[in-house]
């Protein structure tokens, strides 16, 4: 039994953004899974040593503040008295000492006193506030996105949002793609990135590789969104789409060839690009709820295999929502590419699928096509 000292740990019952693949902290907190696992594992150990009346409290309260814990830990075994470390109102040194003997646990008696109760409450409230802030941020983003929907690209991106976010570190992304199978998700995500970080910091440029003489799609110009000419951004996201022949027609992503193999498949590319958004952003793959993740992954999988017809998609859109999972997600972007590829082979394919047609135009509006 060990415990990680973490001053920022969160009680088990507190609801956190559910995320499967949390990699980075959301506003300084560890995301869902880790913290709740920790919280749970503490409970049985504690309850064994505590009276019934205290159990609930323990469940609710966070684990002891770590710096003290650490000190206690060291003192164990050297000397029994922990009085000097404990607050004056230490109620049961006996219990503590017994615990120390038995398990060597660092169960701190502060848990049981009232002053800590207050501190814990403050902490919880603080965390709730932080969480609220995340929610509000998300809402603000959503509002920006909605506001920008109707506006032209230029005014939208030079609007409020560009000032708020800065690119954390420069990144140059290369997407190799077959001109017969354009990865439109890159266009959607570039648009979102530009809305977020400003058109002075995010660019999309397409190139034709000399080995590829195939005709480019008529709307290949969508893949050109240069930086503002007077851009002074020191940190930028530059996405280059290179039209060339790729294996199986699957686009591939290269960021740093010296340490990575090319990442293939538009779904994987879209996931990566979505993660370049701030982590509070609804499109960010890691902010999806568990429910949505499985739906998005399912849709991504389907899109990756290529569409044989539009019936399933029509069915999926029966709920009258504008997008596949309610809000726009990377699944919509990748599926869009698949549908366009399908419609290229079957120009009249969408005729009997009104919802798909509607969804297509929602997507186009969303992406400012």
């Amino acid at each position, binding site marked *: 039994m060990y415990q990680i000292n973490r001053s920022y740990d969160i009680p088990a019952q507190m609801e956190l953004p559910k995320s499967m693949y949390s990699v980075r902290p959301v506003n300084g907190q560890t995301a869902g899974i880790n913290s709740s696992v920790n919280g749970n594992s503490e409970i049985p150990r504690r309850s064994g040593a505590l009276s019934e009346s205290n159990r609930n409290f323990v469940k609710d309260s966070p684990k002891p503040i770590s710096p003290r814990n650490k000190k206690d830990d060291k003192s164990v075994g050297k000397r029994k008295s922990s009085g000097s470390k404990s607050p004056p109102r230490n109620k049961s040194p006996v219990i503590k000492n017994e615990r120390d003997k038995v398990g060597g646990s660092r169960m701190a008696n502060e848990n049981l006193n009232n002053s800590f109760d207050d501190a814990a409450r403050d902490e919880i409230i603080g965390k709730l506030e932080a969480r609220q802030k995340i929610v509000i941020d998300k809402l603000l983003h959503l509002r920006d996105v909605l506001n920008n929907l109707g506006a032209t690209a230029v005014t939208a991106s030079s609007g409020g949002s560009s000032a708020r976010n800065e690119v954390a570190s420069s990144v140059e992304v*290369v997407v190799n793609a077959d001109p017969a199978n354009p990865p439109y998700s890159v266009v959607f995500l570039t648009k979102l990135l530009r809305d977020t970080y400003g058109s002075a910091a995010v660019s999309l440029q397409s190139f*034709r590789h000399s080995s590829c003489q195939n005709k480019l799609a008529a709307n290949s110009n969508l893949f050109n969104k240069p930086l503002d*000419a007077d851009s002074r951004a020191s940190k930028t996201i530059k996405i*280059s789409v290179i039209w*060339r022949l790729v294996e199986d027609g699957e686009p591939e992503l*290269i960021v740093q060839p*010296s340490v990575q193999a090319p990442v293939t498949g538009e779904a994987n590319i879209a996931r990566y690009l979505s993660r370049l958004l701030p982590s509070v952003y609804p499109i960010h793959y890691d902010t999806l709820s568990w429910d949505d993740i499985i739906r998005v992954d399912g849709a991504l999988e389907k899109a990756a295999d290529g569409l044989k017809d539009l019936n399933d998609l029509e069915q999926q859109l029966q709920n009258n929502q504008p997008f596949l999972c309610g809000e726009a997600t990377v699944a919509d972007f990748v599926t869009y590419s698949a549908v366009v590829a399908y419609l290229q082979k079957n120009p009249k394919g969408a005729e009997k699928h009104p919802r798909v047609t509607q969804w297509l135009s929602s997507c186009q509006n969303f992406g400012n096509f």
Partner: protein
Amino acid sequence: MVAGKVDTGVKDDARSKNALKKEAKDAAKLAKKQAAQEAQGKPDEADSAEDHSKGKYGKLEMNASQNKVQRELKRVSDIDTSFANKSVLIRARLHTSRAKGKQCFVVFRQGRSTIQGILTVGDIVSKQMLKFVANISKESIVDVIGKIQNVPNPIESCTQSDVELVCEEVWIVSEAEPRLPLLIDDASRPDSETGEDGLSKVNQETKLDNRFLDLRTPTNQAIYRVEAAVCRFFREALDKQGFVEIHTPKIIPAASEGGANVFKVSYFKTSAYLAQSPQLYKQMAIASDFEKVYTVGAVFRAEDSNTHRHLTEFVGLDLEMSFDSHYHEVMDTIGNMFTEIFKGLKNNYTKEIEQVRKQFPSEEFAFLEPPLKLQFPQAVKMLRDVGIEMGDEDDLSTPNEKLLGRLVKAKYGTDFYMLDKYPLAVRPFYTMPDPKDPKYSNSYDMFMRGEEILSGAQRIHDSAFLTERAKHHGIDLETIKSYIDAFKYGCPPHAGGGIGMERVTMLYLGLDNIRKTSMFPRDPKRLTP
């Protein structure tokens, strides 16, 4: 005549044996064999005094334009199966010949094209004629009349592999000395075939010493056609953009960039220098309202650099252009010009490129359209990512340039890219600083396969600022007075760059030495031929 011929045969044989001993033992063996065969044939020949092929072969009198004859010469490269059973006249070099009993196989070469000729003793060809043809020294120029016939199996060793020429008349137009300093076949052999299996190879110095022979190899025939095309596409691309071709003096009064690296020549009672760059003159043309100019001409560098990519004289493709608001206009023009050159070569010179690759294998040159533009700090970051330590304002060392080329190729898949925004500290005084960050400058280099081929920048067009920058660099203002004066009376903002033609050709073809793309290279150790 018959006796005389035999004599020459023996003499020739002895001479060629001596020569070939030097160059290629194998070839010598072959010659020995031939000599043995000839020796066998001698008694037969002496017996048959009558020569029914008389008047069908021999050595033509030296052409002094005695007669103007109307006749049609065919190009070897044009001859294919559609000529079957037709009689043709060609003028070509005798590349190789091999007599075997009553037959003789000859390979005729014209430029990069080769065709197999065949002589068989019979109604048309006499034994004497066969002997005469078998004894013509390699590299002699001959006129051949014969019938084209299809062959059942392709002749792999010839470019015209579907047909052969049944020779009826063979005339020597210009005879080569039998002793060749190098054999064309040896000089055009890929490195991979020499060495272990004993095939001989001609080293670079021997080739350059005998350039007039070396240039006859199909590879060189191709290389210099590609090089000509580089020049042509350079001109065409810029002509389309409204550029004016100008010619700048090569004898200049003073060293334009401070005095180092220039050749001093005597000039009547005083001395002058060979131009190390047409830059001042390009810029003066801009100041004189030509707006967009380019020039193609020799550039001289007195650098004692004995590397694979330095010459003391090379052909500079230089351009200069005034622009509206931003020097990127010029960069894009140059970038697109390169794209046109690359595309032109790719689409029109496939055969030549293939030919060169046969001897010097290389990967196909890859490029992006529009060209990739990177910024210097970006390049520094890429290098640091793989563990190279360098300061923000350091210039790229040659190994780092190479490495960066490989990194860019791995990520972007292109052999050509432009690197923008060099640190001001590593550029000449006339370079315009970056208005946003004084550490950097409005300057750029362009690279092919990781080697620099163009260096350029926005130039300072304001004489006062130019003076200030020159002082900052500690340059004696007297020495550059005429340069600064050129901008005193108004000059549009402009930028430009200079390209080394030989380097572009070398790197496009993936060759390893610039001496392969300079017809008569000049380097610190070579002033001949």
